[in-house]
């Protein structure tokens, strides 16, 4: 930690551009930043400092991979209740900086609901702790939230404290398929409006795949068993199929493919999911060669558009964003061809808080040392 502080302080004094890096799985997300003079890798800060299993909290260094943390926690039957992309390689610091959470969010919330403390190193070498080691704490500002999703533009995350959850006694996944999206979207809304205690709810669709809805349950055997009837009643008109292998890691396949592609995140209200998926279906027609989406019932989904040219991709993603914004939502392009990223604001309109975002950046990183240009509004 002291080394991070020294390195950062020296770099910012010398006017260098520093890019914090964890497992390197999401370095191409966001705007292309100004070329970095220095890459600050956290991979040697990889210890699980403390697993207070009786208090159900853990303190972990930023460079620890998600899988290694989970492995350590599992020794006492516990876990960090989130399922980010590529857990074997993704680090704690990386998932925090990019705010990457998966389907378990339906029950356990996002990283903002699981983190209880953070240690940040600012470009001037200040080491600042916020939050603490207890689940409930309102002393001072909630700076862990500021770090989440900041894409390494405010401070380097060196340590985080999380609240933990028990590993479930029993789990079960149900998958329903239909020739069209509509009945599945309806089922997703019906499940969310019911008293079923699902932990994850995921819609999958694409040009060359039959749409499907996955519903995950956790709890006691008796509890899981008892919910099956109610679920099957809600889904009476749909075909139940076997869930594919690693169904809850379906998002990862969106990053696989050889054609030029855009991968991005759509966020809308749950009731608007049907409309944006329908639009994906429309914009995914020729001249594009393919589209896929994996969306959570809460309204956040990731999509992949494939096209022969980036011109075709650009048109498609522009239409998609217009559609999302018309419905009060947002669209962010995570990865895409360089020329597309040069022509398209990957983050979208920053809203009326941009001057405030700038002042926050100015206060914490006045010299623009950390990943300048990578974030919203060119921050």
């Amino acid at each position: 930690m002291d080394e991070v502080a020294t390195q950062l302080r020296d770099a910012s004094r010398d006017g260098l551009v520093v890019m914090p890096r964890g497992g390197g799985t999401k370095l191409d997300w966001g705007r292309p930043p100004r070329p970095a003079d220095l890459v600050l890798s956290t991979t040697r800060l990889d210890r699980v400092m403390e697993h207070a299993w009786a208090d159900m909290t853990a303190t972990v260094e930023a460079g620890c991979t998600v899988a290694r943390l989970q492995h350590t926690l599992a020794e006492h039957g516990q876990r960090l209740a989130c399922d980010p992309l590529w857990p074997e390689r993704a680090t704690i610091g990386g998932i925090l900086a990019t705010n990457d959470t998966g389907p378990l969010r339906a029950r356990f919330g996002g990283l903002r609901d699981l983190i209880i403390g953070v240690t940040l190193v600012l470009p001037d070498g200040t080491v600042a702790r916020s939050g603490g080691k207890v689940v409930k704490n309102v002393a001072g500002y909630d700076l862990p939230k500021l770090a989440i999703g900041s894409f390494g533009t405010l401070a380097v995350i060196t340590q985080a404290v999380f609240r933990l959850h028990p590993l479930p006694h029993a789990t079960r996944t149900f998958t329903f398929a239909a020739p069209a999206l509509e009945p599945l979207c309806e089922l997703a809304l019906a499940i969310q409006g019911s008293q079923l205690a699902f932990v994850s709810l995921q819609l999958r669709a694409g040009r060359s795949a039959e749409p499907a809805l996955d519903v995950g349950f956790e709890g006691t055997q008796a509890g899981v068993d008892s919910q099956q009837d109610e679920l099957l009643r809600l889904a009476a008109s749909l075909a139940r199929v076997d869930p594919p292998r690693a169904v809850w890691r379906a998002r990862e396949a969106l990053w696989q493919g050889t054609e030029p592609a855009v991968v991005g995140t759509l966020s809308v209200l749950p009731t608007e999911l049907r409309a944006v998926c329908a639009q994906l279906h429309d914009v995914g027609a020729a001249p594009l060669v393919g589209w896929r989406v994996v969306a959570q019932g809460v309204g956040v989904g990731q999509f992949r558009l494939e096209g022969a040219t980036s011109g075709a991709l650009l048109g498609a993603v522009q239409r998609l964003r217009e559609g999302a914004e018309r419905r009060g939502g947002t669209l962010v392009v995570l990865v895409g061809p360089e020329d597309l990223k040069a022509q398209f604001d990957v983050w979208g309109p920053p809203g009326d808080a941009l001057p405030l975002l700038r002042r926050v950046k100015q206060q914490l990183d006045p010299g623009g040392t950390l990943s300048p240009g990578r974030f919203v509004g060119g921050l």
Partner: protein
Amino acid sequence: MDPRILDRFRAIVGRDGLLTEPEQLRTYECDGLTNFRVLPSAVVLPTSTEQVQAVVRVCHDARIPFVARGSGTGLSGGALPIEHGIVISLARMTRILEVDIPNARVVVEPGVLNLSVTQAVAPNYFYAPDPSSQQVCSIGGNVAENSGGAHCLKYGFTTTHVLGLEVVLPDGSLVHLGGATLDRPGYDLCGVFVGSEGTLGIATKVILRVVRRPALIQTLLAAFDSTNQAGAAVSEIIAAGVLPAAIEMMDNLAIQAAEAAVHAGYPDCGGLLLVELDGPAAEVAALMARVREICTSCGAWELRVAQSEEERAAVWKGRKAAFAAMGRISPNYIVQDGVIPRTALPEVMSEIERLSGQAGLRVANVFHAGDGNLHPLVLYDARIAGQEGRAERLAFSILELCVKAGGSITGEHGVGEEKKAFMSVMFAEPDLDTMQRVRCAFDPERLSNPTKVFPRPRLCAEKPGPYQPHPLETAGIAQLF
């Protein structure tokens, strides 16, 4: 206050929206923490976002500090007025603007009461954060304090349920933070604003998430001989992988007070646990069987599940009235709010007992036991010379105990005026300084509740950077408090 300024306020909010007479101002001189009192220069009661903006602009022009106030139920002096400053009361902004059940969203003005949100989405949904004052406290105040409540163990605090905010910044400009949809691009300033205790601006609109009511709710009362036994049961329940909707604990003194006040029908015992489970019926049944087993093995001699909604309501009424009930057994009392890691409960309890004996004052204990949030109530009699001072010292040494145990000086009541000196016990100077840099981004002129939360103000014109001690400090001649 300069009459020309008052005229400007009057032009914005009308004659009946401005209070200046001392007897009117008296109502606003303190919040729920009554031992701090300051008379504001004026109280302004706007009815719209535009009026709040206009009032704040006047304050900004004239460099008048302001304190936003909801229902004034806060327990840390967060809404305590500032001398020569004004109070902006949001009590007249009480509209529920939108109820969207299919998306489980509600949009409200800040003066809407906490319980009104649940009533607006009843019977199938509810608003989860439930501070004991939920019948009277406002959503704006909840946002400022990041309020908790018994059911936060499972459902999370106010911050989990606030998705978006419309905020009037201290320069009068309007910003929208977060929104109805998740993960909006940008820093999570909505998350930073929640719990900032009125120091970053005034929320004028709040987008909330509401929760689907579970199929079954069951509440168990378990009587133990001691809080240590009850505490052991809490640890075992959690260790067994059960996450109750709430686990509350009361000691004998708290039980006596609650019984005297509301006749909740609690068993007379040394340590009472109240465990609430919710979810699908079969899940609740399986877990309740496990919880009963654990309680019995930890020494519970009476187990009682509330049999009806009325019984359940009575059980909760006793718990939620516990603070006020202290008036039945003591002329005066201090409500304290600290957090410890759950496992430290036995040693912290016996240390509280020791300190209480040493001070010659009784301490009643009410806990949100599941998350280690203690509410020691220090009982005293202000008519006896010296008791009040001793009670305050005892309350503060309990806080120090919490920090030493690895906990926090506040779990839900906030720092406000009361605990700002204690921030230095919990945080180092660079930690506080970093928080204040964020504050400078929102409120460079230090107008919004400027004297709260931090032990020492930071001048925002200071060059951002690590805290530089004054030469007199380094020389050991002066010290900052």
